[in-house]
Every structure is written in C-alpha cells, then in structure tokens.
C-alpha cells in the first residue's frame, strides 16, 4: 500500500490528522530602523519576539526597544514591563515615544516580596489578559542570565499561545534567547568597535542577526549593519 493511499485512508476517518497549524499573519510593527524593517518587516503581531544582546557591553538592544516603542506608540497603546527599572524617560522623549500611550511598569521591591523576574512575568500575564495594548515589551536584560535560564519552557509556550489570539506583539529583551520555537522572531544585536569621533561619542555601528523568523523559511541567520546616532549628535 502506497503512502499516499494510506494517508488518504487515514484522512477519511481523521480529517485533521495531517493538517498543519497555520499561524495567522496579521501584520507587523515597524521598528523604525530601516535595515531591520527591510530584513524582517518589523516585529510580528500575534507572536513572541526576542531581542537579545549583551548586558555588559553596549549592544543596541535598548535602542531598538525604544525605537520600537516610539513607532508603536504613534498608533497603539504600549506597555513596558521594566524588570530592572532601567528605562530612561529622557531617551524616550528624544526617540519620539508618545508618553501618554505608554504604560511603564517599574518592577522592584514590593510588599508581595516577589523577585523582579517573577514580577515581570506576572505583570506580563495580567497585561495579556487585558486586551487593548498593541505592544507589550518585557525588559529582562538587567536580570542575570542564570536566573532567566531557569524559566520553564512551558511559560514561554503559554505566552506564545496567548499572544497568538491577540492583535498585539509581545517582545522580550534578554541577554540570550530562551523561548526556542515559541518565538516568532529572534534578533541578536551587537556593536562594532569603532565609535568615537574626536573626543565625542556620536554614533554606534550596530550589527543585527536574524536568528529565527516565522516569516522567512527555511530559517537561517541573516546579518545586516547599520548605525545609530547618539542623542546629542
């Protein structure tokens, strides 16, 4: 009996046996950085995105996050869950974030005595339950890598399943990717060494690597380079 015949017979009884789950492509939020938008068309809606970069060295991940928030806050309500309370409002203003459309949640010491990572995940959960936010960004890059690594895969899977049903993007900023196949897009970002112009820091040369993308198959790493000016340049 041929495989095709066997498959047809099974499908007669169980129609969905060989059906492939199709993810809804429901648009993207541009990051505001042309090179990244050209490569991946921005951050996908209804998917989990990871933006990774070193915490010790300057990588550009926060700049990418701020640029993304600035773009998204023009026509959406955004939430930033700041696990290490590191967001700089002055930077946000310079980048063009609409502050009235940004919900900033600053994790830290609380009566509940939860660690910042636990707080960030609980808050992300609450925000996902309440619809209306077009972008939910969770900044975990200040949390030690060994702590973030302990997050069970089931948590990432749950987030990925919940965000699939909402017209919103869920973005995690981390040092290393952890969501594996639950992530719709994984970007790794780093800096080039040459940066100073005379005696003043004027721009950073950045390199972004697309490590995973549902939008482009087969998956392979893609690199693109660009530069971002400093706020005073």
């Amino acid at each position: 009996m041929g495989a095709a015949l066997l498959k047809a017979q099974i499908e007669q009884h169980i129609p969905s046996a060989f059906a492939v789950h199709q993810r809804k492509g429901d648009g993207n939020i541009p990051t505001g950085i042309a090179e990244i938008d050209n490569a991946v068309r921005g951050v996908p809606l209804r998917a989990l995105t990871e933006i990774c970069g070193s915490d010790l060295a300057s990588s550009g991940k926060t700049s990418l996050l701020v640029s993304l928030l600035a773009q998204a806050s023009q026509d959406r309500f955004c939430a930033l869950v700041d696990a290490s309370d590191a967001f700089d409002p002055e930077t946000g203003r310079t980048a063009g974030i609409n502050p009235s459309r940004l919900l900033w949640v600053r994790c830290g010491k609380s009566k509940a005595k939860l660690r910042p990572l636990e707080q960030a995940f609980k808050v992300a959960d609450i925000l996902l339950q309440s619809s209306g936010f077009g972008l939910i960004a969770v900044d975990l890059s200040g949390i030690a890598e060994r702590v973030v690594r302990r997050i069970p895969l089931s948590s990432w899977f749950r987030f990925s399943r919940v965000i699939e049903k909402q017209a919103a993007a869920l973005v995690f900023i981390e040092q290393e990717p952890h969501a594996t196949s639950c992530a719709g897009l994984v970007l790794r970002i780093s800096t080039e060494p040459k940066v100073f112009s005379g005696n003043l820091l004027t721009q950073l040369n950045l390199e972004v690597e697309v490590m995973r993308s549902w939008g482009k198959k087969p998956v392979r790493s893609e690199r693109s380079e660009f530069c971002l000016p400093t706020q005073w340049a």
Partner: protein
Amino acid sequence: MFACLHVPDFPVQAALLPETQDAREGLRQSPIAVFDGPASLPKIIALNGPARHMGIEAGMTRLQVETCGGVLLRKRSEADENFAQAELLECANAFSPTVESTCSGTVILDLAGTEKLFGALEDTAQKLAESAMERGFHAHVAVASNPDTAFYAALASAGITLIPAGDEADRLARLRISLLPITPDMLETLESWGIRTFQSLAALPEAPLTERLGQDGLYLQRLARGQIMRPLVPSGESPHFVETHEFDDPVETLESLSFIVNRLLQQACSRLTAHALSTNELRLILNLDVRQVRAGKDGEEYKHEWKLPVPTQDRSVLFTLVRLDLEKQTFSAPVKKVTVEVVPAKPRAIQGNLFAPPSPEAEQLEITLARIRGVVGSSDEDGLSRVGSPELVDTHQPDSFRVRPFSSSASTNSATVVPAIALRVFRPAQETSVERTGEAPHLVRLGRKYRRVLAASGPWCSSGNWWKETWVREEWDVALKTTAGIGFYRIYLDRLRDRWFVEGIFD
C-alpha cells in the same frame, strides 16, 4: 394636590430593611421592639403591632420586655434609619420632582401635573404604596389638597386615604389634638377647656381663640380645619451616596467583609442608577475595633480612596478594586464598621472613535492597573509611582521624572520618531572607583573588576538646586573594554560627596 407617604413604626421598619424580602415578611408577623438609650438603662422607643398586642409599650425598659419573652429586640441604628429615609425619598422622587422630607419616616410630594404620567390620583396613590412596598416599607398614603392635611391623614389612617378638596375638616375631625405641633402648656390649656379633637378645636370662634392663645392658637385651628396652604420645602441638597454597615460582632475574615462591602456597593450603585448618575470617586472607611483606645481617639480607622478615569455604575468594577486593595492589607484589629461613599458624577456619554487606535477598556483598565500595583507595589522608595506614564520634570537634574496615572484617553503625539542610542539607567546609580591619568579616567571598576578605559569624553560639569538638595557633578562618557565587547558607560563624580558612580550604559 399633595400626597404624603408615611411609614408607621419607622425605626422598626428601618431595622428590618437590610433583611431579604422573605425574611422581612416573616419577621413582620413576630413581635419586634427597637430600644435605645444608655447601656445601663436602654428603653423601648418603637415597636410593631404584634408587640403591642403582647402589651408592650414604648418607654418600657429592655429588661421588662425581655421578661415577657418572645419579643425580638433590635438596637436602634441611625445608619439604618438614614438609609431607610433615603430609600423613602428615592421612592417619592420617582413620582414627583418636588419632594419634602418632612420628618423621619414621612415624605410629602407635590402631585401637580403628574396625572398624565400616573393617571388619576387614586392610581397614583396606589402605585406609590406599591413602590414603597417593593422597597420594603408598609406605608400609609394620603392625598389631599394641602400638605398638612395629607400629613395628618397619613399619620392617622392606614392604607390609602383620599381627601377631596373641601372635605378636609370633616376627614380630620376625629384626630386627637396631640398630633398637632403644640406646646405642652397649650395642650394642657386646651384639654382643660375640654378640647381634645381636631373637630372641637376647629369649632371654636376665631377671635376669642386668638385673644386667649394668640396667633399660634389660630394657626393650630387652621391646621385642624385643613386650611393651611404652604409651599413644600424640597430636599434640594444633592443626594449623598454613603452606605454604612455596623457589625454586631467585629469581623476578621476577608470573606465576611467582602460580602458586606459588595452589598453596600450594590446599594450605592442602585441609587446612582436611580438618579441617572455614575461615580468616578470611591471612598472606603473601615472602623477597627481597637481595644486600647488612645486618649482623644475613637479607635483607629482605615481609609482608602479611588479616583477613576471614567465614571462608572458598574458594581463589579468597584468591588474588584476594593477587593484587590483589601487583599493586600493587614489590620491590627477586627473591623466593626464599614462605610462606602461614592461621589456622584455625570455618566460618560461619548461615542467611540472609529479611527482611534484600539485602547484598553476604560472600566477594566483600573482593575488591570490595581492588579499590577498588587504585584509591583504602588510606589518606590522615593515616592514615585511604579505604574503609569512617564513624564519629564522641568529641570536639568539628570534622571528626574514623574510617573502620572495612565489613562486610555491619550492624546496624539506630534513628535517625530528619531532612532537614537538609548541610555539604560542604573537605579540607583552604582557606586564605583575610578583611577585617573591626568584629568581623564583611566580605569573604572565595574562590579568587582577594573576595566580599562579605551576612550573618554568629558568632563561635562553641571550643578543645580542650590536652594534645596544641591547637586554638583562631573560627567564622563567612557568606552570600557569588557569580556563581552566594548561597553559605553556614563560615569560621574559627585563633587559634594567626592564619590564616583556609574549612571548607566549606552545600549
């Protein structure tokens, strides 16, 4: 025409009002007495029909009544009576815009012009009695051509009484003059003349009566004749939406407290709905049963206030906010009294904008924010809110900002989007050690290790706030060689304390 709605044995009926309808109807058949007065000698102030049949009278002591047995005794509750009076006013307000709260348990309403809405006067009186019954009152209703005639008729006659114009004196004839607003001296004088009813007072000649009792006597005679026509004094003050419950035994568990708070909010929201109002401000006051009361203080109390971005009538939204707050609190003593106050506001009448971005639902947003505050806390060590929208402060001091409440009715932004290198701030700034070569930093400690400075830009000096908390700093942007690559950090020297700090990293 005027209608009077009178609730007989008002303290008793008010005491039964918090009960469910079935329980209330069951209790009405039982003898009930309400007592008040000093704890050493409480006396009966009101009782119902079955209690009167048992021979109990107002003024008897509690002990005397307890010896009779079988009488349900309730302590007088001012809160219950206020609530009942408010209910009575609401009931009357549904029939007429001009309502006078004449006294406790009695309201008078002007029925002029209501015929087209409610039909004939008989029908209106019937509907008024039914409406009062739905609210838990067994009330007397009287309709007459002037307020005082309606008042005395309702006071004296059960059920529905209709007095046609011109028949006032005849219908009031048998009432005792003690019902009139009469001074004890005047009552004694009239009784000494053999005047005991309205009829006999009305029959006296006016001139000799005025000569002997003055204008007050003439006024009483006109009242007895049903000839006084006065305007109503409407209860013009804006309705006060305060609900209170005092526990017989102080409660300690959240479930018991939540049950009562839920009921109070339900009552408040029902009243708001009846007045076509909403609320955007909610206050909760819990009086604690503190055993050792400090001098000059009547126990301790817990207060909390919620300000909502949009007005709401939704009881579940308000209750969830209260519940989320109560879950976080621990009290030093059980709760003996709960007060819920809602501040009335005009309901939101706004049409959604088809072209506006999707936003969090305004009513649910407050609950979401309250839940988030429950996780991360309300404010940090500096008193800044942990949840909200960032707002810059007009100052040159670095890292100065405010966090204002987040709202789903946000304004549009005219700022252009310009990608730029962002600063990740360390809050609080990390103290560090710096070695200099000349003026420029040469080595900077990050954590435990010293990192070599590859390039440095600075110093950028700034100072300010000399009138308050002065700050003087020397700022450097440095490129440090780390194991992960090059890190661009902002460090500064606090010149007042002569200590170095890492403010953040350009990331």
